[in-house]
């Protein structure tokens, strides 16, 4: 079980679809950002699993090549969280609500 690539990939797919559901269904903007973090983590898990099972080369150097990509994804996710939360706080200061279905300034 722990020695098959399929198990990790299916785990990653389940996590990704949970994140998709949260992003589409939640009303709170910060909940949507948390769901995006879940989806990014799912993708990262898939990258690390591919690397660990030799998709980037069968040596330890191949594994580290995949791990570098995972580290880059983690840093980009950190930048995304910073900017996203700042935007949510800026909108909250104007609209006084964190609920996205009350953000209708573009439709007026």
């Amino acid at each position: 079980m722990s020695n098959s690539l399929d198990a990790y990939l299916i785990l990653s797919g389940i996590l990704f679809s949970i994140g998709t559901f949260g992003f589409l269904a939640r009303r709170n903007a910060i909940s949507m950002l948390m769901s995006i973090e879940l989806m990014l983590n799912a993708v990262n898990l898939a990258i690390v699993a591919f690397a660990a099972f030799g998709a980037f080369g069968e040596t330890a150097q191949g594994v580290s090549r995949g791990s570098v990509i995972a580290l880059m994804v983690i840093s980009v996710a950190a930048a995304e969280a910073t900017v996203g939360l700042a935007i949510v706080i800026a909108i909250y200061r104007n609209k006084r609500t964190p609920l996205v279905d009350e953000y209708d300034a573009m439709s007026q």
Partner: protein
Amino acid sequence: MIRTLLSIAIALAILGAVAAVAALMIVFLGQDWEDALLWILSAVMIGSALLVVTMRDIIRCGLAMIVCFGALAGIYVLLGAPLIGAAQVIVYIGAISVLILFAIMLTQTKDAPRALVFQTQSAAAAVASIVIAVVIGLSITATDWGEASERIRLATNTLSEELFTDPGNLLPFEVVGVLLLAAVIGGVFLAKREPGGPS
């Protein structure tokens, strides 16, 4: 008081059930430690991810997200990439979760926990996410991934050599540094309170 005790009892019961399943798998089914550990960590991760997207109180969603990230760090270690697990703990549990908890506390109104959690399109969203899960699962199981059967353990010094000596990684490394700087400045600028603006 009663409700606090009840929730603690429920949490202990869940933990005991997971530990019992693990002990059962190791002792009776003859599976090795890694399988049992993978089952436990994936159960914790999927369960807390479901809590993140379904719970009513958003502070608890944030705390469940920390649990989810911790279990994922354990899965990274199990996969043979301990440095990624450490980065997961430092960046996600240490930094992003705290950032999200602060943002939650800054944007909570009194009636937010009582308001409707899901949008009106939540049924369609559930159908869409189940379709995505089925498609991903089918494509994973239908693909032949080749000789991918043996896991390779990663030593930290190979990763650091790859990251810091390969010239192909120089540009992404520097670009990520500039990106983080831009994100910090942009975050401060966006969240800054303008003088005379709305408070």
